[in-house]
Structure formats: C-alpha cells, structure tokens
C-alpha cells in the first residue's frame, strides 16, 4: 500500500440517509463523490451529478450494424458469390433473409450492451480497486451504503473529508490508499509471453492432429463402408464370384429395338429409310458422319481416312459401285452389325441418327457423281 490517499469512505445504514448525505458532502467540494450500494437507488444518478449513460445510442448503432451486416452477407453469398436457385426463389430472397437479419441485429445489440457496459463503461474486470480490499465492501454488498470522497489529482484533505462525512451522518469511516505499484519485471513478462506461445503451439499441434485424424476413425468412416456393389469388386452373390455381370441374354437397351435381321440381303429387302432427305435430316446426318464415320471413311465418304496410313485397315469407299448402289437397308445392316474391321455402331447411334447418316451418305454420293442438271 502506498502513501497516497485514494478516498475516504463512510457507511450509512439506509438509502434515505445516504441520499440526504450526498448533497451535503458534495457541497464541501473536496473531490469526486462516489456512492457504493448493494442495489441501485432511485434518483442517485441525479444526486451525484452523473452524466447520462451513452449505452442506448451505442446499442442502437450496433443493432443497425448487425442488421446491415446480415443483409449484406446474405445477399452477397446468395446472389453474388455463389448464386444458386433454390426452391424457385429469387437469388435475393429478402423475405427469407429477414429472420437471420433480426437475430444478428439482436446478437450485435445485446453483446454491445453487455460487453460495452462491462468493458468500456464500467471498465470491469478490474481487481485492483482499493474498495475491494476495504473493510466497507463486505457491508456494502450486504446491506449498507457507502459514500466515498475520492482524491482528485492525487490529493485529498483527509481530515476535512472525515469531518464532512461525519457531519452528514456516516459511521465507520475508513481511509483507502492507492495500491503500491509493483513493477512487472522483464523476467516475469518474458515468462508469461513464452508460456502463452508454448501453450498456443502445443494446442495448435494437438488440434492439427485431432482434425487430421478425426475424419478417418470410425464411425466417421462408416459411410465409406457401404453394403452396395461397387465396380470391379468381387461378389459372393453371383456364382462366378464377379460383381460385374453381363446383361441377361436378350436384354434390350432403352430406346433401342431388337435387331433381328441376319443378312445384308434381308436388310436391303426389308428396311426402308423412314426419314426424308430434307435439310434438317441432312444436317443431322452430316454431324453424325463427322463425329463417327468420317474418321475412317473420310470426310467425303471416299475411303480416305483422316487417320494416317499406319492405321492398316482399308475403309470402304462409299461413293463408287458396288456400294453406291446398295439399298439403304444394307447400309443400315452394316451400321448395326459391322463389317470386317468396322465394329457395330448400334450402340453409338440412335435409330434416327442411323437413317439420317445414310441420307447424308446419299448426298455425298450425289455430290461426287453430280450430273449437269444438278448445277442448274
């Protein structure tokens, strides 16, 4: 305890006495007068000349800030950064944003009220106040009221303060001193800092490993263990032990009809091209040709492939006899079952695409064998 006086404190037995004493003690103008009470007293702020609390304005501002923040973030996240149409709602669904705006407003406002009051306005926590180590404090938090004349600028006329308080009706006078300053040594500062850094490092290391390992221990990995058939896995369900099986004999893919024709001759006799040689059909045929057929048969259908000669097989030239004269059905048969090195393209083309490309081949054939009338 240093020698500098902090305050002189006097005790009163009830609120009425305290309130009567305040103006009398203040009249002496010995220093700031502070009261200590076990509960708030009506009218004491005016009596002590305290300024209005600015907390209301602070809280209002914080609330508005919370509202605007919530609105902005929801808008930015939902309509700008990663816009997703959910439930057919507009990207900026302000109606849906209101509940969170409200909650964040309240959150910001309440924490400003609570923490602003404690930290900013009352400057708590603070454990060094001389009142906390006084005799009076135990009575104050129980049932007595105290009035303290505090030293302004470090000086206080203790005797005058004692007289003033006694005259106003105080009992149990006490002088409080400013606590002695103990300088914090460099060594203890260093120790504290090192301790904090070490704890952070240890905590960080532990957390790193926990987060890293946590997702790979059961039950977190249980979803990876699914009782379903995965590709290329064995299965005890089937006789041959394979998980992957061929489709049952006679399975027909969707959108496909079974192709029962056995010979090209039969195909040529029976199948009729249902698609007219109109513009859109020929366009579609051209697309299909360039995607699937031109690679081997050439862009013009003349058997000169886009591949290099090293390919080996010789694709047919579709523009010259006898192929030129084949009926459409024969072409269809070749597409469906393949021929020589050409595999079946049944799975690659829909029925429409097959006929369309046959129409296109006809166009190619005509293009390479044009007659004079075609130019008129």
């Amino acid at each position, binding site marked *: 305890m240093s020698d500098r006086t902090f305050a002189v404190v006097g005790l009163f037995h009830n609120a009425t006495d305290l309130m009567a004493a305040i103006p009398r003690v203040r009249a002496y103008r010995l220093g700031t007068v502070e009261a200590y009470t076990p509960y708030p007293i009506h009218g004491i702020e005016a009596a002590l000349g305290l300024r209005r609390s600015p907390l*209301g304005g602070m809280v*209002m501002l914080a609330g508005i800030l919370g509202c605007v923040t919530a609105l902005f973030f929801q808008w930015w996240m939902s309509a700008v950064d990663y816009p997703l149409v959910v439930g*057919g*709602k507009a990207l900026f669904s302000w*109606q*849906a944003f*209101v509940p969170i705006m409200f909650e964040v407003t309240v959150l910001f406002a309440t924490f400003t009220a609570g923490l602003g009051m404690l930290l900013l306005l009352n400057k708590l926590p603070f454990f060094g106040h001389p009142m906390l180590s006084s005799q009076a404090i135990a009575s104050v938090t129980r049932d007595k009221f105290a009035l303290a004349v505090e030293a302004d600028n470090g000086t206080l006329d203790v005797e005058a303060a004692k007289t003033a308080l006694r005259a106003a009706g105080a009992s149990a006078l006490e002088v409080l001193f400013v606590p002695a300053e103990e300088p914090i040594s460099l060594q203890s500062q260093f120790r504290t800092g090192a301790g904090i850094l070490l704890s952070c490092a240890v905590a960080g290391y532990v957390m790193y490993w926990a987060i890293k390992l946590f997702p790979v221990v059961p039950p977190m990995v249980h979803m990876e263990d699914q009782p379903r058939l995965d590709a290329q896995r064995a299965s005890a369900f089937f006789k041959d032990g394979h998980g992957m099986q061929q489709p049952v004999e006679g399975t027909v893919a969707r959108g496909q009809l079974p192709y029962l024709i056995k010979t090209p001759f039969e195909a040529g006799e029976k199948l009729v091209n249902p698609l007219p040689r109109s513009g859109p059909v020929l366009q579609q045929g051209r697309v299909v040709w360039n995607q699937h057929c031109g690679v081997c048969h050439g862009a013009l259908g003349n058997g000169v492939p886009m591949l290099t000669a090293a390919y080996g097989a010789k694709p047919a030239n579709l523009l010259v006899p006898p192929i030129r004269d084949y009926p459409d059905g024969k072409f269809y048969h070749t597409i469906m079952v393949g021929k020589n090195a050409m595999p079946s393209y049944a799975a690659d083309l829909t029925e429409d695409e097959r006929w369309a490309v046959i129409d296109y081949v006809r166009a190619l054939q005509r293009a390479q064998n044009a007659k004079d009338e075609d130019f008129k």
Partner: protein
Amino acid sequence: MNASRDASAGVFPIMAAVGALGVVASYFVAEPARFWANWLVWFIFVLTIGVGCLFIVALGHLVAARWSVPIRRAPERLSGLVLLALPMGLIALLSLPVLYPWTRPEAALKPAIAGKAPWLNVPFFSIRVLICFALWMLAYNIFTRGSLKQDKTRDPAFSLRARGFAPAFMFIFAFSITLVAFDWISSLEPEWYSDIFGVYLFAGTFLAGLAASALLVINLMERGRLPGVRNDHLYSLGGFMFAFTVFWSYIGFAQYMLLWYGNMPEEIFWYKQRIEGPWLNVILLLAVVHFFVPFFALVPKDRKNDPRSLRWIALLVLSAHFLDLYWLIVPVVGAKPPLSWPELSFALCFIGLGMLWVRRSMTMGADMPIGDPLLQEGLEFRS
C-alpha cells in the same frame, strides 16, 4: 382554451354534413363496389377503435393494473364508438351482394367456395354479426356504463364485478375480433384463408385503441382536466404502442413470408393483388408508417412518455391502422388504389361523425373514474 374548443366544435358538424353529401353522391355516381368498399373500411375502422378500447379497459380490470386507472375514462368513452359502429354495420350488411362473391349464384360453381356455404351464407353471417354486436353492447354496458355509475355510487363492488367479467370478455373479444377478420375482411375473397388473420386484426385493433386513447388522454392532460396524471402514466401507453407496433409487424410479416415461401397459387393470389402494380406503393407506405416510423420514434425511453411526441406518434399509428384496413379491403375493387372525392367525402363524413360522437361522450361522467378504489394508488404510480 374554451374559445378554441367552441371554434373547433363548429368544424365537425360541417365536416360531417359536407362529407355526408359526398357519400350520398358517391352512392349514386361511383360504382357500387367502390362505395361499399369505402363504407366497409370506415365501419371496420370505427368498430376496431371501439372494441380496442373495450379491450384496454378489460385488460386493466383483468390484471388489476394501477397505472391505467386514472386514464381509464378515455378508453371507456371511446368504447362508445361501438354504438356508432352498430348502424354502420347494419348498413354494411347491404354490401354483401356487391362485395362478397359467395352471395352470388355463380359461387356454387366453384367447389372451394360452394363447400363453405354452411358458414358463408347471408342468414348465418348476419346472425354472427348481430351476436357480436350484442356481446359488445353487453361488454360496453358492464364496463363503461358500470364505471360511469361507479362515479356516483363509489361502490367498490363494481370493480370486482368488472374484474370477474374481464376473463369472459377476453373470450368474447378473441372470437368476435376473429369473426370480424374472417367474415367481413377475409371472406371478400372466399377462396383465400389464413388462420393468423384474426391475430393480425387483433394487433391492429389494440394499436388503434391505444392510439385513440393516448390522443384523448394527452388532449385532456393539456387542458388540465386530468390533475395528478403525469407523464409516468403515459409511459405504459407508449410502451404498449411500441410493443404492439413490433407485434403487428411480426404477424404481418409472418403471414406474408409463409405464404410467399409456399408460393401456392390458391394462397398467394391474395398477396399478388396487394403488392403488385400501383398497390405496391400502398404496402410500402404502410410498412413505413405502421412499422419503421413508429418503431424508431418510440425506441428512446423518453419518447414513450413525452406527450408532445406521443401525440403525433399516436396520430400516425391511428392513420396507419386505417391505411392497413384500406389495403386489406379495397384491392377487391380494382388494380388501382382509388383516391378521389368519394374517398375524401367518406373521410370527412366519418371523421366528423366520429369526432362528434367522441365529444358527446366527453360529457359522460367525470374525466377520471373517481369511484374506483384503486384511483389513489394509480395516481401515485411512478414509472
């Protein structure tokens, strides 16, 4: 002070007369739907002020509140507006064939309306209206007439009787205000339904009663007719106005947001009518005057009991309640919010009539319920 009172006394009969002429003219000139929509809006407005004031009186009796006793005569007098609403309501029954689709034969073709016929038919509707009025008259008799009698007899037994009747009135109020909402307002569009609608009208009704009472109390305070009544007594009125501004907005928003979210055609059409096109301006204005302005105006603690601020806030709240009813009811008339001489005539007529009615009620009994045993404690109340 007396001179200005007499001067203003002359204004209201003139307003009422001029307005009445315009109302009658609009009956013949304007289309029937528009005339009856205006009539309905004013009827519900006057009714909700009256019933709202009855609610305030009943609430005070129910919890044996002290702060409300010195100022209770104001809502008691204003509850007399229910008597003005009675003829307005009976005349409004004539609007049924014009405004309400379920009265028309083609309603039988729509299953959604035809199925409601056991409830929505003219005889049953009228019976419900009459029962509600009968119950409100009963409450008016018990609360207001009883309180006026207590001025003379000073008999504390009335206070006990009123306190005993108050819970019963709460039941009456809950169901009657719900019926007003469902029958008069929501059945204008019988395919629509929302079960919070009664609560929504309750919020507006309570606010209307509070605002009207506050205006009357402040008027009397400034004329020195309420000795002993201080700003402290106004605090709760201001506080309730603040709380119920928030409550009304909450209910209104909840109803809107839930129907917006579900986006069901059979529910959302009601809102589409009211927030699209020119009506958008009305709903935006309503949000401003019914929520934003009163909310921020009443947030500071000092405003809640300051008569000067409270007066204009109360006036705003009352006007906002009117705008609310206009926005609820008038869209059935057309896509454009009507605002012309018919609407002004109705305003002049019924504001004039209403003010005359209120002035007449000012002669009833003392300005404070002097027979109430709690009056002394009420006057000592400090907020």
